[in-house]
Structure formats: C-alpha cells, structure tokens
C-alpha cells in the first residue's frame, strides 16, 4: 500500500477490482463502510458478484483477464473529457516529457511497441526514451500539447479503447462501464480522492504488472497519489507478506529491495556501479544514489565484522544469480521436476495446493532426495507421497516434518499491508515439541556451521562467517535461546565504530537513528535500510501504542512504526502544490508553514517545488517524477490489452498480437506435457478463475483444521450461472467434475445469478470460479483448484496466471 488501512476512510470513491476485500480482507470493510457513511461511492468490478459487490453502489462484471481493456477505456474517458488534474501532472509526473520521435505504439504496429524482436521475444527499448537537453535532462512541454509528450501519446494509445471496443472485450455492458468511469473520474479535482484496493485478481495474470501500471496511470492522471484517501493499495494476502517481501522473500532482491548480485558483478564496487541509478537532473534527489551505503551496511550486518573493506566486507559470500537467471516459483518447480534440485525446505507453505499447476508441483517433489516441511499441521505437501495418484513405494523422497509455533506462540513483528511494522507478544507457549521459527533456524545454523568446520566443504565461509549474535552463548559456543530483540536491533543497525556525523559523535554499539546516518565505509550495519529507525536508542518503535492523531486524517504516528522513517503515506509531497499547500484543504497530509513541513513525515524535507534548491517529489525515481510513461516494463511503456494464455476467443480484438509477447512460454520452450495449455479449444470452452473465501485461509492448512470453519465452508465448490447449469443438466448441490488440460477436481455446484454469461465478440462466454483452499488431506473436502491452473507467468514477475484459464465442467457420473 502507498497509503494504509485506516486511510481508506478518507476516500470519496473506492474501486475494488482484482480483489474481493469484503471476503478476503474483512477488517478493511470497517474503513470502507466508514467512508460510505461519509458519502463515498463504492465500485466493485469483478467477474463474479461477490460479498464485496453486495455492498457496492455500482457493480460491473468483466471477463477474467480483461482488466487493461476496462481500465484503458477509463484512461480514454478521462483524457477525452479532460477530467485529469493538469497542475498535479505538470508538477509531479512525466506527462509533459517529450518522448523519442522514433517511438511507435501498438496502434501502428499491430499490438507491439517499437523495438520488438520476434526471435528473442523481447524488446530493444532504445526508442522507449525521452528527448534530452545538452545536460541529459528530459525535455518537456509544460502545456502538455506537444504531440510527442507523454500525455498526448497516452491519449493516442488509448484512443483505440472506445466503450464499444472495451465492452466487446470485457463483456461489461456499456452502461455499467460508463457508470464506473464517471464515478471514478470525478476525483480528478483537487480536494477529491479515490483509492484502489487490489490483490491477486490483478497480479496473477500474464499481464499482472501492467494491470497495476494501468491503475497507477489513472491515479496519476487524477492526482490521487500521495493524498489522503488515494494511492495504489495492494491488499496483502497474509498478515506479514509485506514484511517478508521487505526482508527479501523473493529471489531477485536482498533486504530493503536491493538487487540480488549477479555472478558477473565480481566485487562490491561493480555491484554499486551496476546497480545504482543515475540522473543528470540537479533537481532530482535520486535517493537510490545511496545504494552503496545500504549494501555496505547490509554486508556489515550479515557477516562477521572482522571482514575488512579490502575483503569487500564479505560481498563474495553473498549468494548470486547467474546472469539472466530467473529463480522464481515456476522456475524452481520446473527445475525440481527435471531433477535439478535435490533438497527442499517447504517452510510455512503448502505448494502441493498453492502452486499453480499443483499436479506438476506434486510430481516434482517426488524427484527430490529430501524435503523438510515446517508447519503447524500435516498437509498435502508434507504427505504428498501418499496423496492421490502417488505410489509411496516408488517415491524415494525422504520427508522430515518440523512442528512449528503459531504466531500467538512467539514474540516478534509483523508488517501489514500499510507497511506498519507492529510488535506482538507471545500469548501462550508453543504446544508440544513445536518451536519458534527462529529457534529452528538457530539450531540449523549451529549444526550446519559445525559440520562445515569439521568436514570442510565447497564454500564454508558463506555460513561460517555469518554474524550470529542473537543471544547469550553458552559454554559450548551455542546460543540456546534466541533473543528476538537482537534480531530486530540488527535489522535496524548499529554503529560498529565511533563515528562523528554532522558534528555529533555516535559511539560504537549505538543503534543507528535512521538510514540517513548509514555509511558506505563499513562503520555502520543495517540488516534492512528501510527499517533503520525502527529500533533505536529511544527503544523499540514497533512496540509503540500511542493513539494520538494530530493530523486528524488517521495517521496515528505513534502507533507502531512504518517504513520508511514512519512515513504513513508514500509520495506525500505530491499531495501539495508548488507552494507546499495541500490540494485537499480538509484532509491535508503535509503542508508547508513557511519555515518547515507539518503533518506526516514528508517524502524528503526539501522546500516546496516553487522555491530554489528543492528536489522533485518522487525521490526514488531518477527523473524525480512519477512515471506515466514507464520504460522499466518488459512489454511496453504503456499497458496494452493482451488475452490470457488460455482464452475463449480466437484473436485479440485489438490487434494481431494475441498474448503478452514477452512472457516465457513453458510449453513451447520446454515441451513438458505437464505444461500443456488449450486456448480457444472446444474441449475446455469455459473461462475459469480461482479465489479464496472468508472462511478459509490460503490453502486452508490452518482453517481446515478448525471444525467451526469447516462447518461453514465444508468442501470444494464451483460457482456457475443458471444458463450454463441448464445446458449441462447441473443443479445446485450436484457434484460435478471440472477439468483443464492439466488436471481435474470434483466440486459441488453452486448455481447462482452471481455469475452471468458475457457477451464477447458476438458470442456468449460462460465463466466459472473455484476456491483453492481445499486439499485431499481433509476428509471429504475435495482438492485444490490449482490442479487446474497453468504453468505460465507474468512477463515482469513470473507470478502465475491462476486467475484466467480454460476448463470444462460435467456432472459427475
């Protein structure tokens, strides 16, 4: 979230699209309804009428996988009717920038941008660039009239997305389409705010990243980024997904969103040189220019502090990616399937149900030598070897099960969607032999390090030279009880030697006050620069419980702590005009008093933009402004509609380019039968999507073990419309078989008006939906919908496309 949960109550218009917040984020509705109490409009756009739609002022259905078309039409509506916030765009975005005249767009190139190579299935992005002056600063036209400026190109690109064309792709009746457009676009005025609440319904597509981009563009056109009640708000699916991402759950980043080193980046200097963004614009803060301080401090936290600058503080010991390597989820299980991976820790997860194309995942685990599953309960992953279709005698994988403490059984922090890192305490001791995750890791560390010391190995230093000061060491040299506060302090960071900064002396061993004090000479450590300021000499900021709200807009700055530096609303310098005065006088986030800022922690403390010596408002980007034109994307600087890999129509109504042209195609490139897909194939004529339900959580490992929850949602179901049900002779409550090219599941039919047939390209398209919270390990509950989903990912992130694929449905014989 750029904003935070409480801030939803400040919105005038709330769009819930790509998420089903009422069902999957029930608490959010406290704030959604508070906004409605004050007159806000709630818009629900979803293939299915959900519990969210039930509370909405306007509901608009759309066929799964057509969000860019839907939102592209909204961009056209905003530009055609000049509903955008001109002054905001001029100040805070690249809308006025002039683009390379050689840049060409899908309207001219049959669905492609300039620079595409059919052979490489990727783009040469050289034309996706700005015209620059002699100093290398982008040229711009503040009037935004130049035909080559970003705003004009954006208008030209989306001029193809007329309501007729959009409706013919999405299946949304034009009436509802325009109702949504008009309601949302009404917030382009100063003093009005609209927010978007999205989740996996947007990300889990081959165009997932571009779905979010499209919405980010809309928010920038309307001036909705940085303000109270605005922003682009990802609703995270678990209490601590934000925290795990911040601390490098993903393969391509280290903690604090520092890039993972490549094997060709031989030393720390090369890493810094290659990974530090540059700018020629003296007015751009380009905050990532501080990269060297953050990576150096990270190394100082990770590795033994005796490692010197001459030893690059242990840079060589960091894990590195082969150049061009993608180690995302789909790739890991693909390699496991092919026998390349021998051992696997499945820690707090259940890939046998959660992984797209779960049948392939289950087969892949049978190729392992060993697997350690760390979980609260037995689950379909831990017991995969005795699951459906498995022959235990033929599987050599040795499985270890480590019972682990639940969140209530341990102390520590979780970081919520709104970036609030909140400390919580142990309520009850762990049951039986289960232990805290940290205790398990601690034990693993000492045992593995000891083995390396005794027996040597290929690369022992990466383990033996880790710093591991998380508690009192016994006479045996081991830590027997992890001090979780020591971990939190290391994440914040210490001064490793006496250091004078701006005339003040900080003593060795002191906690660093904030990331502005981090150094690249090895004198500071920080396990995650973004969290530097979270645990200081003033104490554990995460444990704060102050309830004052001086802002009046729900920032609650003394409740827990939020990254970065307790800034509650990101990009908040865009909430003010050039003189530092808030666009929204009633709900100001920050304001300039003449001598300083008041309100939230400003996004950089520089003076308002009209005053000399200031820096632009989007400090994390080299150009200093938000990207309406975003050349960082793999498939184009503007979003373009492409059909899902599996789709029900022969061709993309907008162009001759049917699918995202830069996705990795597993089936064509690897040829595995497990990766097969069927597009526009009569055997699998119905669009399908997957989702969660309020009553179960993720794959259901926790909730399927709670009888009260199973009572409410006892088993696998599939929702379908009455017309399709009649055609297929299916009645509500019947058991049916749903199949895709990858597998099949049995489910109880829920025949409901909440799904409606779509009129697309002159034909009737039926869509069905299934939850993925069930598994064979719970008696009579059915199995995971992910047995049906495909092996294909988004071009930028490789998140699997589980939200739009093709199935058949038949009454069970």
């Amino acid at each position, binding site marked *: 979230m750029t904003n935070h949960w409480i801030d939803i109550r400040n919105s005038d218009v709330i769009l819930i699209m790509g998420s089903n917040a009422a069902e999957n984020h029930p608490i959010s509705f406290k704030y959604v309804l508070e906004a409605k109490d004050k007159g806000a409009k709630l818009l629900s756009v979803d293939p299915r009428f959900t519990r969210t739609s*039930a509370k909405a002022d306007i509901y608009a259905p759309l066929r799964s996988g057509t969000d860019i078309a839907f939102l592209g039409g909204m961009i056209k509506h905003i530009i055609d009717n000049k509903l955008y916030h001109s002054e905001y765009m001029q100040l805070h975005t690249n809308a006025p920038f002039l683009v390379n005249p050689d840049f060409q767009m899908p309207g001219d190139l049959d669905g492609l941008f300039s620079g595409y190579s059919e052979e490489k299935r990727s783009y040469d992005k050289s034309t996706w660039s700005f015209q620059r002056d002699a100093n290398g600063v982008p040229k711009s036209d503040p009037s935004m009239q130049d035909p080559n400026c970003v705003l004009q190109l954006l208008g030209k690109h989306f001029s193809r997305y007329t309501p007729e064309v959009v409706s013919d792709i999405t299946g949304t009746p034009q009436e509802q389409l325009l109702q949504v457009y008009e309601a949302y676009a009404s917030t382009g005025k100063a003093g009005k705010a609209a927010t978007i609440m999205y989740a996996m319904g947007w990300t889990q597509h081959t165009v997932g990243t571009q779905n979010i981009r499209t919405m980010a563009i809309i928010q920038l056109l309307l001036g909705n980024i940085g303000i109270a009640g605005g922003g682009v708000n990802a609703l995270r699916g678990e209490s601590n997904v934000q925290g795990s991402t911040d601390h490098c759950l993903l393969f391509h980043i280290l903690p604090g969103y520092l890039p993972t080193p490549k094997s060709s980046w031989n030393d720390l200097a090369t890493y810094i040189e290659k990974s530090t963004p540059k700018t020629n614009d003296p007015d751009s803060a380009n905050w990532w220019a501080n990269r060297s301080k953050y990576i150096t401090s990270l190394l100082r936290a990770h590795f033994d502090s005796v490692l010197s600058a001459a030893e690059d503080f242990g840079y060589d010991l960091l894990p590195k990616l082969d150049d061009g390597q993608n180690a995302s989820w789909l790739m890991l299980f693909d390699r496991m399937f092919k026998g390349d991976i021998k051992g696997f820790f499945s820690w707090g997860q259940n890939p046998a149900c959660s992984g797209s194309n779960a049948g392939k995942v289950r087969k892949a685990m049978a190729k392992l030598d060993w697997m350690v599953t760390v979980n609260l309960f037995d689950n379909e992953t831990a017991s995969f070897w005795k699951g459906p279709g498995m022959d235990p005698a033929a599987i050599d994988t040795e499985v270890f099960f480590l019972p682990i403490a639940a969140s209530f059984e341990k102390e520590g922090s979780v970081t919520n969607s709104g970036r609030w890192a909140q400390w919580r305490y142990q309520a009850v001791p762990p049951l039986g032999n289960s232990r805290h995750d940290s205790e398990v890791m601690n034990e693993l560390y000492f045992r593995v390090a000891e083995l390396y010391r005794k027996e040597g190995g290929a690369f022992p230093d990466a383990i033996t030279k880790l710093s591991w000061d998380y508690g009192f060491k016994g006479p045996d040299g081991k830590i027997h009880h992890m001090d979780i506060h020591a971990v939190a302090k290391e994440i914040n960071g210490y001064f490793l030697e006496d250091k004078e900064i701006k005339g003040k002396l900080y003593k060795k061993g002191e906690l660093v006050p904030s990331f502005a004090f981090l150094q690249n000479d090895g004198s500071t450590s920080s396990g995650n620069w973004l969290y530097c300021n979270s645990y200081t000499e003033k104490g554990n900021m995460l444990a704060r419980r102050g309830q004052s709200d001086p802002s009046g807009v729900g920032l609650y700055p003394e409740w827990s702590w939020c990254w970065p530096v307790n800034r509650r609303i990101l990009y908040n310098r865009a909430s003010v005009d050039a003189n530092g005065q808030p666009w929204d006088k009633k709900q100001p986030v920050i304001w300039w008093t003449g001598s300083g800022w008041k309100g939230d922690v400003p996004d950089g403390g520089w003076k308002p933009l009209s005053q000399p010596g200031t820096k632009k408002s989007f400090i994390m980007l080299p150009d200093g402004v938000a990207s309406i034109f975003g050349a960082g994307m793999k498939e184009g600087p503007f979003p373009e509609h492409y059909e899902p890999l599996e789709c029900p129509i022969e061709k993309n109504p907008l162009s001759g380019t049917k699918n995202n042209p830069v996705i990795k195609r597993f089936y064509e490139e690897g040829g595995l039968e497990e990766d097969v897909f069927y597009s526009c194939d009569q055997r699998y004529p119905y669009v399908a999507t997957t989702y969660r339900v309020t009553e179960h959580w993720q794959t259901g490992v926790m909730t399927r073990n709670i009888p009260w929850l199973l009572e409410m949602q006892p088993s696998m179901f599939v929702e379908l419309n009455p017309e399709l049900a009649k055609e297929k002779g299916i009645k509500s409550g019947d058991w049916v078989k749903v199949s895709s090219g990858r597998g099949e599941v049995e489910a109880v039919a829920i025949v409901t008006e909440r799904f409606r047939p779509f009129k697309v390209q002159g034909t009737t398209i039926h869509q069905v939906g299934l939850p993925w919270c069930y598994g064979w390990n719970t008696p009579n509950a059915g199995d995971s919908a992910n047995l049906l989903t495909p092996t294909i990912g988004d071009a930028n992130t490789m998140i699997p496309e589980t939200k739009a694929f093709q199935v058949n449905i038949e009454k069970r014989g």
Partner: protein
Amino acid sequence: MARKAFMIDTSRCTACRGCQVACKQWNKLPADAEVNRGSYENPPQLTPHLYNKIEFIEKGEGKDFTWRFLNQRCLQCGDAGCIKVCPSAGALFHTEEGLVGYDQDKCISCNYCVNGCPFDVPRYDANNKVTKCHGCMDRVANGLQPACVKACPTASLQFGDRDKLIAAAKASGKQVYGETALSGLGAMYALDGSPQDYNLAENPSIPQSIFLWKDVIKPLGILGFWGAVGAAMLHYVTVGPKQLEDDFEDKGGE
C-alpha cells in the same frame, strides 16, 4: 435498568460470519459436520449448536440482482411467545437487561417454546433441553458485549441501551424492524430494504393459539395441576402411596 438490545444493521453486514464463530467459541458449542448443498449458507438452519447464523438471500436478476445478508437469531421479544408458553416457571425468562434467557435445569423438555416462537428459534439439544441465543446473558451481566458483537468487524452488530440504539438508527435515516412488534424486539434490524427483501414477516406476532394458551388454558392448567397434586396428597394421606401414580395420571388436569 434500561432495556438492552441488539441493533443489527444489515447495510453493514458483509457476511464474514465472524459472529457465527465467536458465538461457538464463547458458548463452547461443537461444530456440526456439514456438507455444501449448493450455497454459502451453512448450516442451513439454526441448530442446537448454532445460536446465530447468516442467511444469504439472492433475489432478482441482472442489474436488479441483490445479495443480502441477515443475521438470524433469537430476537429477544419483549412479549416472548416462548416464555408465555413455557409451563415450567423459570425455564425461560427475561433477564434484568430484557434478554430472553433460559435455565436448562428447569426445562421439562415439553417443546412448547418451539411452537410458541414466531421466528422458529428454539432448538433442543442432545439432552432434550432448550437452547438458543441468550444474548450472552453471562457476558452482559458482567458488563461485557455479547461475543458476536465483539467479533463483528464492521459494527453491523451493535449492543447497548435499546432506546439509544433506536434513536441512533433513526437519526441515520434507517428503518427499524421490531421497534414495537411483540412489545418491542430485543434484537432489532436496521434494514436497508423491506422486510420482504429479508424474508421477514411484516408484522410478526405470536400464534393466536398461544394467546389462548397463555390467557385461558395455562392458568386453568396450573390450577388443575395443583388441584391434582392436592388430591394426590390427600389420597396419600388417606389411602397410602400405592396408587399415587395411577391417580395422578388419571386425574391430572382435572
């Protein structure tokens, strides 16, 4: 003491069913083994282990389609059919706060309350004793909110002084269901729709036969009951215990 009540604001209910689970947790009620019958609504009816549930109501088609959610439970009537009809004093009763409580030790398993309830609420458990939502009378008596109210994330369920809840609901322009019916319900609905939209009776009332029972037959019956006991005692004193049972059965209700 001011009468306490629930106000159930249907416009705020997202059917998360936290109320269903919180109730089971506080009241230590086991889960029923259920199957999906083609709906989210589960269990389909109140059971001896289910004191409140959400009804999922789908109506209409296309643009006129609605999906409404109604928290079903004992509505804690002011003029409570179940209390009226109950022959065992103190088995069903109004608490000080006006909730309809019950005492299973005094329940004689007659099932009359089932017929006396206009809303089909009371259920009988495995011991053949009455169960239903009692408004968490144990929590309320100790100054706590009922468990369902505490769990509700959207303030769809509210509990407090009945007068204040009614005033607040009206002030925000809501239609209150149950303000006066049955001497005022102790669990009212602030409806965003008509009673029919929620499958609720427009004018809920106790079945006519119950008035007859309460006002005519039951007093006579109780008179008759004590008459019979008196006769039996006389019989015991004068004749001895042997034929007591027969006499009691034969003459009961005289």
